[in-house]
Structures are given as structure tokens and as C-alpha cells.
């Protein structure tokens, strides 16, 4: 093709395409409810399904906060409180943040960003999504049997002696979600490794793909160990073995090691893709090249590597010998370094940029503030001497909600506002987005900041009843949680209304430079008529492109 023959994107859409016989021109609404192998459909399936679970988990949290408004047990029965506590954590981790960030954004974006027509194994990809459906059904179904009672960590002996049927369903659900995660991860690794457009070198890959690569390696290494631990627990509960029964020679701490060998890296599974989203959103809306591309890319790999050797910091009070406490304190402090590298790189990217304060960018900047705070409280907790005092108090709850809500969920929102036009072909309403951000930011801080103080004063976590001296701060937290609950309304209204009625989105509404913006919004079924060729880097803002682009 010569320059003169280049079609504009509108014409590209108008040219009668000749898709292969087994593909329709465009997916219909009901295709989203089937075993569809298009990575974009699967991405949206993950996002919508996990968002529904986010709402369910959120309602559980609101019910718990209502219970905690008074010191006595009056709103939920203690057993139901335990079940909500366990399943709120489980749902938010395994059915919201992990599937939304890895399954949702990862599937939708990775092939588009590297110039592939689909993932390496499309059928396996669809299978990975549909495996999470029975996982969700098992979790919801477990409530008919009282719900698992032993917290998302399911430490024995509590998990062996309470609600056996529900606990077994919980284990099966987690193993299914883990299987999905392994299948998805191997797909990402092979796709990113082998299916980039030939003109894209490793160091021209968008940083989101680097983050997905690191996430996938981590999931592949750590998830099977959790599966092993949970298998042993399942046998202890149902088949009379005694792996974790000290009376017969077993050891409960063994479970904790197996569990945290996965579940600490799981923290990075929940934040590395979000870091990837940050590295895309911030340069686009700052109109500046990313600061320290290689530093950000390699720090993802560094987090992935060091993150495998910090798990015992969850177990400082589990009779852990001093040499182990020292080793894991040091490794925990080291893992904060690559994270700091990223934070400084994003701040430096924004420095002197022409920042657009739209909803996506507001959530990204909000994440920076919240994550730095959560990261600092994480450093204090990673220090054994301090952790011994606040272990299992609300300080821990405050900390991990700052990194998981203020970090991961803010990042998911930033990604949703940023890529919604690409996913649906419609723009979201900006004023509603800003209202959503302000309510979320205020609600998050009101809910989780007082928890640090509660923890320092000694309020234990995971208990429905508490000493009356903690009531004032708890009511502040409960008030904050109501603000958080309300904050979802403008978002839901915005997302649902805009999907059909929002203004049409251009192919590249943000003037971004990564490959997903070179195709139509929403992308056509095989992503491009003709595969794109790289002419400049993914973040070359403010630099004259080598050649005028065909469809801007």
C-alpha cells in the first residue's frame, strides 16, 4: 500500500471485510454468555463477572461495618459474621481483583498491545474463564452450609473443626480459581514471548505487558504450592489424615508456610497488573514519555523474584525462630525497593507534564497517594519488632485495605475509565467520573485510616464484638464505608448508561501511542485488517513521529 491508498479508520470499517467463515462480522450481546474464544470477549466476561462479585463482596463488607457500629453483637449472628468475614476476603481476592486485573485487563489488552490477533491458546483461555464460574458458585453455595468460618487464610485447626462442608466447598473453589490462574498465566507467557508483532522488540513492549509477564511467572510458581497445601487440608477435613494435627505428629505451621508461599506472592498478583495499568495511564494523560522504562520493566521482574522470599513476614508470631525473623524482615524491606522505583518513576513522569485531570488520571494519582501510605505501613509491619505488637490487630486490616483498595481497586477504576472507550466504543461521562473519584477517595480514607489507630490501641481483627472504648473510631469507619457504598452508584449509572447511550468514542480518544489504539473502538473481531507496524516507541510523547499516522 502506498500512502495515498491508506484508508482512514472510518473507511476501514466501511470496507466489506471478509472474515473467515466461522466468525460473524461482529459479536452479538448473547455471544458474551457463551464459550467464546475471542480474547476481547473473554476479557469483558472476566470484568463483568468479577465486578458482580465485587458488589457481592462489598455488600458483605457493609454488613460487617454495620455490625461493628456498636460493640455488642446485634446486627449479624457471630457465625454469619465469621462467614461474611471469610468470604468477603475470598471473593475480593479470588473473584474480583485477580480475575479483573489479570483475566479482564490482561486478556483484553495484551494481544492488542503486542499486535497479535488473539492469545496463543484461545480455547484454553475460554476454559480458564469458565472454570471460575463453578468457583463462584461453590463460594455462594457454601452459604447454604453455613459458609466457611475460618478467615480467608483458613488456618488449621480452626478450618478443620468448623463448618466442614462449607470449608471443603471453599477449598474446591480456591483450587478451581487457582487452576484458572495457572492456565491463564501460561497463556500470557507464551503469548507475550512468541506472538509480538515482529517489529516489536522486548524493550518496545508496553509496560503493562512486562507487568503481565512478571505476574504470570509468579502465578505459575506459587499457585501450585497453595494447591498442594489446600489438598492436604481437604484430606485432613474429609479423609481422616493428620497433616496438620499436632496430636498425631502433624504441624499447623506447615500449613501456614504452604499457604503464605502462595498468598504473599498473591499480593503481587493483585498489584503488578495494576502497576502495569499505572504505567500506561500516567504517561498518556501527562503527555510525557514514561520516566525510566527499563527501571519499571525490570523492577516488575525484581518484585516477582524477591516476592517469592518474603512470605514468613506473615508468620512472625507463629513461633518463628529469630534467624528466620531477621532474614524475612530484611527480604521484606528489600522488596519495597523495586516498588519505590516505580513510584518515583511515575512521579517523575508527571513532573512538568501537561496533565489532564480526567477520571482515569485522578484515580491513578489517587492510587499513588494511597499506595505510598499503604506501602509505608507495610514496611512497618514487615519489621518483626513492630509486627509483634500489632499482629492480628486492625492495624493490619487498615494496611492491607490501603494497598488493596487504595492500590488495586483504584488502579482497576483508572483502567476502566482509560480503556472503557476502547472496550465499548463509547465515552464515559466525565463529571460523574469525578464525583465517583471524590466519593471513593473520601470514603476510602474515612473507612481505613482510623483502623490504624484502632490497631495501635489493640483492637483485634476478625471479631464481631469489641471493647466499648473503640466505639467512636469504629463508627467513623462505618460512616466511611457508607460513603464508599454510595460512591459506586455514580459509577454504575455511568457505566451502564454510557454503554448504550454515551457519545461515540474515536479510535484513539486520548491520543495514546500503544497499539491497541490503532484499531477501531471497539476493536474488530480479529483486531486489525492488516497487522500494525511499529514506527515509534510506546511512550514517545512530544516527539515527532517518524511518519504521519494513518488513522489519527
Amino acid at each position: 500500500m502506498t500512502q495515498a491508498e491508506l484508508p482512514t479508520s472510518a473507511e476501514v470499517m466501511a470496507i466489506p471485510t471478509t472474515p473467515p467463515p466461522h466468525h460473524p462480522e461482529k459479536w452479538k450481546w448473547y455471544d458474551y454468555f457463551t464459550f467464546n474464544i475471542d480474547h476481547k470477549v473473554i476479557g469483558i466476561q472476566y470484568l463483568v463477572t468479577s465486578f458482580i462479585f465485587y458488589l457481592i463482596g462489598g455488600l458483605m463488607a457493609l454488613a460487617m461495618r454495620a455490625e461493628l457500629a456498636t460493640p455488642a453483637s446485634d446486627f449479624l449472628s457471630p457465625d454469619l459474621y465469621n462467614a461474611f468475614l471469610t468470604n468477603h476476603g475470598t471473593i475480593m481476592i479470588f473473584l474480583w481483583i485477580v480475575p479483573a486485573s489479570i483475566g479482564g485487563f490482561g486478556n483484553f489488552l495484551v494481544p492488542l498491545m503486542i499486535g497479535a490477533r488473539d492469545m496463543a491458546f484461545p480455547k484454553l483461555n475460554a476454559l480458564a474463564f469458565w472454570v471460575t464460574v463453578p468457583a463462584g458458585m461453590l463460594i455462594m453455595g457454601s452459604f447454604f452450609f453455613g459458609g466457611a468460618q475460618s478467615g480467608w487464610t483458613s488456618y488449621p485447626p480452626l478450618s478443620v473443626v468448623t463448618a466442614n462442608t462449607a470449608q471443603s466447598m471453599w477449598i474446591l473453589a480456591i483450587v478451581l480459581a487457582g487452576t484458572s490462574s495457572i492456565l491463564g498465566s501460561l497463556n500470557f507467557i507464551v503469548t507475550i514471548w512468541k506472538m509480538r508483532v515482529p517489529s516489536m522488540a522486548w524493550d518496545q513492549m508496553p509496560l503493562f505487558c512486562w507487568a503481565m509477564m512478571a505476574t504470570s511467572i509468579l502465578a505459575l510458581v506459587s499457585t501450585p504450592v497453595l494447591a498442594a497445601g489446600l489438598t492436604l487440608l481437604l484430606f485432613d477435613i474429609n479423609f481422616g489424615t493428620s497433616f496438620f494435627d499436632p496430636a498425631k505428629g502433624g504441624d499447623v505451621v506447615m500449613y501456614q508456610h504452604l499457604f503464605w508461599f502462595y498468598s504473599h506472592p498473591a499480593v503481587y498478583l493483585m498489584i503488578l497488573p495494576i502497576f502495569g495499568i499505572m504505567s500506561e495511564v500516567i504517561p498518556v494523560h501527562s503527555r510525557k514519555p514514561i520516566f525510566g522504562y527499563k527501571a519499571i520493566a525490570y523492577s516488575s521482574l525484581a518484585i516477582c523474584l524477591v516476592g517469592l522470599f518474603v512470605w514468613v513476614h506473615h508468620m512472625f508470631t507463629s513461633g518463628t525462630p529469630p534467624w528466620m525473623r531477621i532474614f524475612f524482615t530484611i527480604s521484606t524491606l528489600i522488596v519495597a525497593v523495586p516498588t519505590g522505583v516505580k513510584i518515583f518513576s511515575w512521579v517523575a513522569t508527571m513532573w512538568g507534564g501537561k496533565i489532564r485531570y480526567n477520571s482515569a488520571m485522578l484515580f491513578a494519582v489517587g492510587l499513588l497517594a494511597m499506595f505510598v501510605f499503604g506501602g509505608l505501613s507495610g514496611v512497618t509491619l514487615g519489621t518483626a519488632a513492630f509486627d509483634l505488637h500489632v499482629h492480628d490487630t486492625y492495624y493490619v486490616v487498615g494496611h492491607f485495605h490501603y494497598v488493596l483498595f487504595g492500590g488495586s481497586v483504584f488502579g482497576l477504576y483508572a483502567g476502566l475509565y482509560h480503556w472503557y472507550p476502547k472496550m465499548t466504543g463509547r465515552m464515559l461521562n466525565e463529571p460523574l467520573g469525578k464525583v465517583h473519584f471524590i466519593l471513593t477517595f473520601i470514603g476510602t480514607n474515612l473507612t481505613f485510616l482510623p483502623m490504624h489507630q484502632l490497631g495501635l490501641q489493640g483492637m483485634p481483627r476478625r471479631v464481631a464484638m469489641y471493647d466499648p472504648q473503640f466505639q467512636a473510631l469504629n463508627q467513623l469507619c462505618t460512616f466511611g464505608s457508607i460513603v464508599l457504598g454510595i460512591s459506586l452508584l455514580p459509577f454504575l449509572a455511568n457505566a451502564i448508561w454510557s454503554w448504550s447511550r454515551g457519545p461515540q468514542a474515536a479510535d484513539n480518544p486520548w491520543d495514546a501511542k500503544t497499539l491497541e489504539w490503532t484499531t477501531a473502538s471497539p476493536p474488530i473481531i480479529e483486531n486489525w485488517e492488516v497487522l500494525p507496524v511499529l514506527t515509534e516507541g510506546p511512550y514517545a510523547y512530544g516527539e515527532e513521529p517518524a511518519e504521519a499516522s494513518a488513522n489519527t
Partner: protein
Amino acid sequence: MQGTIESNSDLPTPLVETHGDAIDHGEHPDLRVLGLITFLCSEGLMFVGFFTVFLVYRAAAAAWPPEETEVELLLPAINTVILVSSSFVIHLGDTAIKKGDVAGLRKWYIITALMGATFLAGQVYEYMTLGYGLTTNLFSNCFYLTTGFHGLHVFIGLILILGVLWRSRREGHYGTEHHVGVEMAEIYWHFVDVIWIVLFTLIYILSVL
């Protein structure tokens, strides 16, 4: 834009020419073998988890295995010889199909399947004659769980081999160029074999020493 959908004389054009009409899914080099190997790395780590549990409990125990739950070595040693040699047999099948010899593939894969079935039968016989069960003590917990989990993998490998045999009945399904399925079954079988060698060393030989 990072990329454009054009090609011009300054840029290497083969990209567009070779990929321009490749609209269909699956028009990329076959990556299934790579995918399987990635999966097996992950699967192997689940065994590493079980082995670690076994070794840690072994280190902590006063007597390992305890007196009433000693392991038998002769039958598992025979089983080991069968499984390890089946890895060579299955490779002969792979070599045959690379020369286009479907009959050779079928012959060697049938022998492999028989050896795998013999291994499983031997394991069932061992379970029945050991005289203790899954719940007897911590050692027997570990023993049955790990060997059983491995046995499950042998069973899956056997199904994969039978699947290859079933498909090979169709004329021209496998040939010198098309034998990824054959190769994947073989890789899986080698994986099961390697895991068994580690398992045999840790659970049987270490327990007798």
C-alpha cells in the same frame, strides 16, 4: 501512534505481506509444546510442595517411617524399571512418526500403554498388600497422598496415549509434519517418569536407608 497500519518503503514490508491475509486464529507457529512445558513446570511445583512436606516431617520425626508402616522395596523397584524403560519405548514411537511410520507409532505407543497399565496395576497391588492405609499415621498420609497423586498423573498420561492411538486410526491424522499431539503425550509421559524417579528416591530409598 506507536504503530500505524501502513507500510511504506522505509519500513520492512514482509511483515504486512506475510501476515496481511492471515486473518484466522491459529495462524501462528504451533506453540502447544511450549505451552505444555510451561504448564508442566507449574505442575511439577505441586509435587515439590508434597515432597517438601514429606521431607520436613521426615526431619522432625523420631522414626521415619514408624515401625508398623515400613515400605516394601522389591515391587516398586520393578515398577520403576518398567516406567523408566517405557520412556524409551515411547520415544521410539515418536521417532517412528517423524519418519512417517504410523504402524511403528502405533506399535510403540501400545507397548507404552501396556507398560503404564502394568505400573498402575503394580501400584494397586502394592496398596492392597502393604497392610496399612491412608490414615494409619503421618508417614502413611504422606506416602499414599504423594504416590496416589503421581498415580493419577500416570493415569492421565495413559489416557493421553490412548487418545493418540485412537486418533492414529484415521488415515493421515499423524505424519512426518503433523505429530504435535504425539509429541505432547510423549513429553507428558517423560514428566511423569522424572517425577517418579524423584519420588522413588525420596519416599522409598530414603525410607529404607
